[in-house]
């Protein structure tokens, strides 16, 4: 009894279903024309051009002593940055430039919101005092923005910052979406370099 027959008998015993399938088996897979005659040449083409040597190898290199000097270079950079941000004895937490920029935007937004809040209160107070009893005490967004644009420079940035920094969460002023957008646009259009401005103002 040959090996093939042994294999078939064994299969018949375990699973008559698969035994039947194996008997009906035909070659269902094909290959493109001339595939096998060309296969040897294709493999040798790869071997000849030396690509095989590149497979699995690390083809990237680093300059001599790169890793020996890496930790020293990183520490020197950290020291330099720490020195640069120590302003007036106040140590500012190191952040990535993206995070720093986000924080700056958030703080300026809070400052602008604080201005808006002050303006809103002032307008309301003046209208309550001056206007007739029946007149609405609400101010329009346009009025508020115009006032901020005309008087923004009157507010001391340090005072505003201390107001914001004292408790960021306390300044959760509810603003309409339109007003928020307008304030963001205003800040973006009028302050060119957040990081520089913040650093020079010890923010």
């Amino acid at each position: 009894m040959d090996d093939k027959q042994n294999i078939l008998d064994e299969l018949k015993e375990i699973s008559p279903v698969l035994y039947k399938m194996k008997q009906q088996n035909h070659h269902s897979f094909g290959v493109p024309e001339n595939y096998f005659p060309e296969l040897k040449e294709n493999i040798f083409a790869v071997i000849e051009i030396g690509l095989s040597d590149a497979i699995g190898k690390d083809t990237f290199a680093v300059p001599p002593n790169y890793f020996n000097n890496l930790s020293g270079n990183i520490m020197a950079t950290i020291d330099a940055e720490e020195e640069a941000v120590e302003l007036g004895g106040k140590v500012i937490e190191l952040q990535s430039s993206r995070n720093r920029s986000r924080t700056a935007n958030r703080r300026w937004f809070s400052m602008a919101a604080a201005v808006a809040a002050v303006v809103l209160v002032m307008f309301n107070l003046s209208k309550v005092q001056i206007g007739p009893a029946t007149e609405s005490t609400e101010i329009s967004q346009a009025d508020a923005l115009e006032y901020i644009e005309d008087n923004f420079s009157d507010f001391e940035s340090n005072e505003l910052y201390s107001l914001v920094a004292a408790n960021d969460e306390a300044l959760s002023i509810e603003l309409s979406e339109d007003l928020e957008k307008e304030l963001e646009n205003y800040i973006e259009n009028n302050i060119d370099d957040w990081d520089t401005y913040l650093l020079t103002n010890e923010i």
Partner: protein
Amino acid sequence: MTEQVLIAALKDEFQQKRAFQTLIETYQERLYWHIRKLVLDHEDANDVIQNTFIKAWKGLNNFRADAKLYTWLYRIATNESLTFINNRKKKFAENFDSDEEYSPANRLKADEYFDGNEAEIKLYKALETLPDKQRIVFQFRYFEDLKYEDIADITDTSVGALKASYHHAVKKIEQYILEQ
């Protein structure tokens, strides 16, 4: 050329290249069909068989003269195929919600180089559900009619363990086919 002569030529620096060409010519079809039935797609099988021979070329110096060439090549081809299958599965796992969607066997219907029937597709889908060891022993036994002793050499597994794996594999495939 006998196997001993071919092995000697492969070890000889001056005959090595010519001998390796003979090696490819001798084993390319057997290895291709072994790989193809595992990875199913022709382009994938082509990549795997090329990697197999390139690895063999690079490993010629490590080949022991007392070993059998086909055992050595089948071992490389099987490992390359399983690595390919597992990498492909990992890669596609991110893009497909289920194994059913990912299944290379499901794509056989649209394969221009496959003309099998539904029952065969079902068989290949069942194979995809098996653990690697069971899948490999089934493949060698069912499709390639290999003796347990030869499979044991290739897979470095005992004959007893292979018989048990084959039995489990056949039963699982039968169950899968009957349930579908």
